[in-house]
């Protein structure tokens, strides 16, 4: 029974959503505190938020910053990671620095970067860029390191020059692993985006969240959380589609990477 249900694509996650909403509704009715409004009440707020021009512009602004930071990070991180994977020297050069930066909470740099670049787009985009870069570099590095040497030898034997080998052999061969990093990076981009806006408290969806909290609009708080949740899930599904379209030949070892959360 469960096997046949699971065979319908998209159905299990949908059922999971319904289950989670039902749990929420029941919990809210049992505990009956103002801090936890029932699910239906929060969901009723959704059209109001999505119909409000200001909120929608704020959310779109957030997404634009996220997209920009994310794209810049991919442009910078993938070449660095691939170079690290193909050259021991480059790897030895970057590894210690990256290991040192790894545990720094990137969004926590926000107040310091704000001193230098102001509260505007630049600092938020930079923070997102920093947050996304590391996992993408790491996975591109692992992907490029694991490229089958014979592929490179064959290409070299057929007269392909080194730079072309990098773009025509290493990059496609490492692409499945790169996608693991990109997927982690996308989730991190969303996290850094929301967090930086919660810290800077000036614009964006993180700001809407805390403004509603300050004004005790609890339904709106929960509705905004639902919006962020849907964004996270939708972006992840979209990327997964793109992955299976681009590198469908490589089945991932695991459906989800451990570092995703």
């Amino acid at each position, binding site marked *: 029974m469960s096997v046949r249900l699971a065979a319908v694509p998209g159905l299990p996650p949908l059922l999971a959503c319904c289950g989670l909403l039902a749990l929420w509704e029941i919990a809210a009715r049992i505990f009956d505190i103002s801090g936890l409004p029932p699910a239906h009440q929060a969901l009723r707020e959704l059209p109001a938020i999505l119909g409000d021009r200001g909120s929608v512009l704020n959310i779109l602004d957030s997404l634009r910053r996220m997209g920009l930071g994310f794209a810049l990070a991919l442009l910078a991180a993938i070449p660095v990671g691939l170079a690290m994977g193909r050259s021991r020297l480059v790897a*030895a050069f970057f590894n210690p620095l990256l290991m040192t930066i790894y545990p720094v909470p990137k969004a*926590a740099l926000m*107040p310091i970067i704000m001193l*230098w670049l102001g509260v505007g787009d630049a600092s938020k985009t930079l923070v997102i860029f920093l947050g996304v870069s590391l996992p993408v570099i790491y996975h591109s590095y692992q992907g490029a390191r694991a490229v089958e040497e014979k592929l490179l030898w064959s290409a070299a034997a057929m007269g392909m020059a080194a730079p072309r080998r990098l773009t025509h052999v290493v990059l496609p061969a490492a692409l499945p692993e790169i996608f693991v990093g990109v997927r982690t990076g996308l*989730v991190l981009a969303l996290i850094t985006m929301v967090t930086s806006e*919660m810290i800077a408290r000036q614009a964006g969806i993180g700001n809407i969240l805390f403004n509603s909290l300050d004004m005790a609009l609890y339904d709106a708080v929960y509705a905004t959380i639902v919006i962020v949740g849907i964004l996270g899930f939708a972006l992840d599904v979209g990327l997964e589609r793109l992955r299976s379209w681009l590198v469908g030949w490589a089945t991932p070892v695991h459906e*989800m990477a*451990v570092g995703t*959360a």
Partner: protein
Amino acid sequence: MTTRRTFEILLGLLPIALVLGAWQALSASGLAPPSLLPAPHAVFARLVEQLGHPSFLRHAATTLWRLFAGFGIAVVIGVTAGVAATGSRTVEALLKPVVRVLAPVPKIALYPAFILILGFEHASKIALVAADATFPILLATYQGTSAVEPKLVWSALAAGTPRRKALFTVVLPAALPSVLTGCRIGLVISCIVVFLAEMITSADGLGHLLVYAARSFETVDMFVPLITISLLGLSLNAGFNALQRRLLIGFPEQG
């Protein structure tokens, strides 16, 4: 070989030295006023001074307590759920879609909800840390336990071990490398998240110290908690690595 190794280590130290050098040069040249970018020696002197300060250590202890409480909860939930999903088809069918939906959701967005339900004190921060650290541990445990050689389990079952017991005495230990990797990732995530939560709303902890310093434009004091939490993350990561190596003596080398 050894000279090559030393060369590579030195090469690795180069970018770190370059960053510190650029920082020193920027602040010494006067291009960046000290109020925007304090000199590195001022920051490190302040860090050493603060580390001897009882009130600073109290803030650090608060952060650590939240970190470990949340991480502990995450380990218990993550490992149990991961093992249960491997052990039972029903649990697996129930858990998989829920994880599929919740894992890519930025947990930090749940923080306001935790505040509303659990209050501004420890509980909401611990809950956020637990929510963030659970998923990597759960996924790693599930992936590790489901990859365990089935012959091991069959032997245990044939020898008369009850199925449930075999799960914890055979499958979990065999999956230890993967479980520990998940825990290490979860630990660093906990470190980052607890700091962010304290920055967003808090009256104590290292994250609060950063925000407090930012409000009064004490740039040096902004760097100190940030460096402290990063060093904490580095040393927890290194400590966990050492623990992992000790526990995994006899296991095949992990890629």
